[in-house]
């Protein structure tokens, strides 16, 4: 038997996607509706009153990458964490653990499905945004790559969260109490250049600033921080998550007694 069982990985991937479609109202429609409301309120209504825009871009268009990232971080994390937490919670994880399936198949299945759902959401959100604001994507290829990278990284993070959590409360603490505030304060709705000191320097300590600005660069060709730094930090985060998950499978932490 080979080191990677593609059929097993495909089976997990397919089941996870089907679970998302089974709960489409919650996993697809709800985030799209929430993001649409942001576009209506901040992009069309308030943005329409802001003369001169922000960072040289119309305000409605300026917030598109930030809102997209807000959804990607939350949904990638939640989908992957829920995907692995539920079988742990119900006990159905026994089947995965007793199958000839290793870390590679498990990640390809769970994280691949969560990242795919995020990409589908991103496409729907960008399509929806075009009804409310005029925006352009300066580097579509890089934008796709960056969205994929962020989705995969935070799906990996969500997978770790789903293994760490031993209650539904813990499962929702990180997205609600950590990711959401960091994203709101990370330049989703404003350029950090408009912040006075010392808040501008404090904001640079928020990792989400680099993610938002990385994606914003792919849209408008300019941002508050260098694209190289944003990309480097995102890849570093991805590497940390992969290393931690490899350790989880090696030691069986919270998976095998």
């Amino acid at each position: 038997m080979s080191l990677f069982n593609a059929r097993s990985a495909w089976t997990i991937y397919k089941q996870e996607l089907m679970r998302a479609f089974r709960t489409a109202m919650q996993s697809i429609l709800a985030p799209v509706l929430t993001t649409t409301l942001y576009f209506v309120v901040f992009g069309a209504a308030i943005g329409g009153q802001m003369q001169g825009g922000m960072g040289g871009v119309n305000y409605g268009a300026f917030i598109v990458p930030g809102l997209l990232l807000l959804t990607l971080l939350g949904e990638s994390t939640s989908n992957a964490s829920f995907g692995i937490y539920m079988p742990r919670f119900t006990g159905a994880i026994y089947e995965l653990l007793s199958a000839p399936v290793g870390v590679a198949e498990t990640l390809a299945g769970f994280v691949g499905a969560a990242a795919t759902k995020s990409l589908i959401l991103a496409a729907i959100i960008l399509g929806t945004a075009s009804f409310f604001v005029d925006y352009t994507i300066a580097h579509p290829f890089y934008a796709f790559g960056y969205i994929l990278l962020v989705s995969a990284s935070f799906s990996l993070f969500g997978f770790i969260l789903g293994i760490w959590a031993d209650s539904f409360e813990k499962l929702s603490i990180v997205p609600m109490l950590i990711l959401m505030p960091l994203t709101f304060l990370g330049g989703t709705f404003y350029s950090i250049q408009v912040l006075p000191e010392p808040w501008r320097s404090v904001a640079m300590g928020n990792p989400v600033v680099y993610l938002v600005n990385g994606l914003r660069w792919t849209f408008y060709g300019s941002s508050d921080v260098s694209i190289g730094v944003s990309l480097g930090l995102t890849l570093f985060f991805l590497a940390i998550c992969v290393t931690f998950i490899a350790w989880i499978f090696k030691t069986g932490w919270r998976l095998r007694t």
Partner: protein
Amino acid sequence: MQTILQISGLTKTYAGGFTALKGVDLSINKGEIFALLGPNGAGKTTLIGAVCGLVRPTSGTIHAFGEDMGKHWRRLRARVGLVPQELATDMFERVERAVNHSRGLFGLPPDPARVEEILRALSLWDKRDAQIRTLSGGMKRRVLIAKALAHEPELLFLDEPTAGVDVELRRDMWRQIALLRERGTTIILTTHYLEEAEEMADRVGIINKGDILMVDDKQAMMERLGRTEALITLAQPLDEIPEALGAFPVSLTEESTVLCYRGGGGEGDLGGSAEVAELTKALTRAGIDYTAIDIHESSLEDIFVDLLEGGAA
């Protein structure tokens, strides 16, 4: 006899310090039904978990199909199936899809005909499109069995397969398990129903507090450790055991109207019934009349209880 599973010196001590397995040695023969009996907390589920990859052993080795499971887990796990004790599965999934999922998870290509055969054999075909949560407890357990059979395991673990199942369904499952054995599947089952082990098993292992107390052929175990009990109802009560019966292991009940014989069995002695025949002759010779004889051999349950009480003593 070919050994399909060889467990040597297996220990498991949990993080809290509780030792669930204390150096277990066990061999399972190809094609047999092996019943592992033991009270709650004896270590049955831990032992199964260690073989199936759910529990990380503290020490010891597990060889399946002649290979080390620790080293060749990928190809060996593909040949092992598990039906867990708990009804643990995605309850919102539909029956046929859940079985197909299990087959794919173990790396096998779709085979609708085989899946249909499994579902029909377990009387689940009519429920193939039903959500698992809508099924009765017994049917849910059948779904778990179907999922375990989906990848055609050669070695199948059934952890209390008939717990919470009604009598009719239980007997139906016994028939299914017997059919699996006929097809060549080796089966290891844990159960609280000693009747189940007595009915199905070729060999029986008794485990308590992480130690295997005994492993033997079921019939041999019952013959070796079994006892014969005979209750002889007397026509007239006796004040005491007459001298003529002094050689027999008999006692009088409180009312002195029933003579109770407990004997036979033991190492190499199969003569309980024959001794009862001798006892009746002795009664006749002594002029003691009797009106009824109720004679029975001890069950596996009696042996199990005796062993556990002996172990606890």
